[in-house]
């Protein structure tokens, strides 16, 4: 299932006749990402029903609570699944997300421009740019706080008391606020820089790779020097 496939070098998709694609994610990573997407939105929707009074009718009867727990199980097991299926990639992702060098710091200086659609002055970035690293690191931390507070609410119901309940809900709400804002940013950048195909097909356009992750793109090129025009697939992350 994780076998590496060659990206087509011929014209493909609507992106234009000269668009070449490079593989960025292996299918197993895509599957894990989709489980994450579905469970996250299930949790968000069923959670918002208890947060935003006009939507509270969605929570009637307790079905949303059951869905919330099913979503939670999938969400919580996600890192374990990643770690079991691809231990090296998972650990590398964590390690990379918490390693920041001079290039990352330089990238952060140009972050406002990156937010507004400009990649012009960005220092060359590897497979993950500094913003993605920070996004992953923050997600990693808030995944833990939202999971821990959620489990306490789930299994401690009736034993928390007013203080315990409010403290745990505050942590849960703030973690989810953080994760939601980051999800919004994640979607924003995906559409801004046209990277949606990475999630759907596992491949991204050569142009995207060149503009956003030039170091990674170069390393892909270096691996296949024989085919200068061709871009051979190499799993990322």
């Amino acid at each position, binding site marked *: 299932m994780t076998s590496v496939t060659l990206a087509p070098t011929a014209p493909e998709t609507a992106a234009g006749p000269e668009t070449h694609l490079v593989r960025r994610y292996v299918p197993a990573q895509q599957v894990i990402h989709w489980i994450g997407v579905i469970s996250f939105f299930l949790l968000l929707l069923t959670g*918002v*029903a*208890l*947060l*935003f*009074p006009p939507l*509270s*009718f969605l*929570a*009637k*009867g*307790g079905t*949303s*609570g059951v869905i919330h727990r099913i979503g939670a199980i999938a969400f919580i097991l996600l890192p374990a699944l990643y770690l079991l299926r691809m231990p090296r990639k998972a650990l590398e992702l964590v390690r990379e997300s918490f390693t920041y060098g001079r290039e990352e710091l330089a990238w952060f200086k140009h972050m406002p421009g990156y*937010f*507004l*659609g*400009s*990649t*012009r002055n960005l220092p060359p970035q590897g497979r993950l740019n500094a913003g993605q690293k920070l996004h992953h690191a923050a997600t990693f931390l808030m995944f833990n706080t939202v999971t821990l507070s959620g489990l306490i609410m789930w299994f401690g*119901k*009736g*034993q*928390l*008391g*007013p*203080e*315990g*309940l*409010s*403290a745990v*809900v*505050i942590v849960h*709400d*703030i973690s*989810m*606020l953080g994760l*939601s*804002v980051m999800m*919004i*940013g994640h979607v*924003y950048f995906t*559409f*801004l*820089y046209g990277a949606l195909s990475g999630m759907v097909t596992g491949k991204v356009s050569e*142009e995207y790779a*060149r*503009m956003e992750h030039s170091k990674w793109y170069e390393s892909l090129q270096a691996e296949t020097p024989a085919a200068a025009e061709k871009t051979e697939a190499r799993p990322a992350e």
Partner: protein
Amino acid sequence: MPTRYAFSIDLDRCIGCQACVISCQAGNELKDDETYIHVGEQIRGSGKTLWGSFDHHRCFHCADAPCVAACPTGTLSKWNGLTIVEKEKCSACGYCTDACPFKVPHIVDNHVSKCVACLDQVKEGQAPWCARTCPSQAIHFGERETILAEARAKVAALKARHPNAQIYGETQLGGLGLLMILLDKPEVYGLPLDPKAPETMKVWQSVVQPASSGLSVLAAGAMGLMFVFARRQHGKERAEHERAAKQKAALQTAQPKATETHHD
């Protein structure tokens, strides 16, 4: 000003017969294993020092009810001093079970289970089932001022036999909607002296909750607006990039002679 109703329970008159429990179950059509009222007993000492009293564990109908504050669906709300329940709205989240300082609400069959103040009866001018049924007239229901005055008179009369006799619930949590006439100090009955909704609960309700939904909507809105601008900006840049790439390719295939190559 709206009426403020209240119950009173006189533990001096209570004979522990459980009639209130049964009439409550029957009147509210509860299942056998569900009950809004628990009548227990407190026994102390032996022989000549033997002391005993029944006690009632049920909703106190707090004026500033933490369960109402915590309830995210509006299932629990205040009506004329009573904490009423609209079961069909309940999501069974269980926040009320933790928020209540008296540990009264429970989740039964996916909905909250606690005294509903027999709202239908009260709206028709009747007293709740427990008050109507009590054979020793230990449970009273009516306007809180009347009920409170009655309770004060009763406690004054009790002082001779029970020097520690007192009303529980006169001021706690904005004044409880159930005044308990105790024969001894509240701690003897396991009642908290100063039940409170903690500060963290106010932070949750009035800061964190509105901020969470507000800020995420704000972030989505801001990024949506920004997207329009940023997408245009990036489009220009991509066109530039493409042109440069084409130029480079053309140069490579045609003449390898020196011409300026454009770098980003």
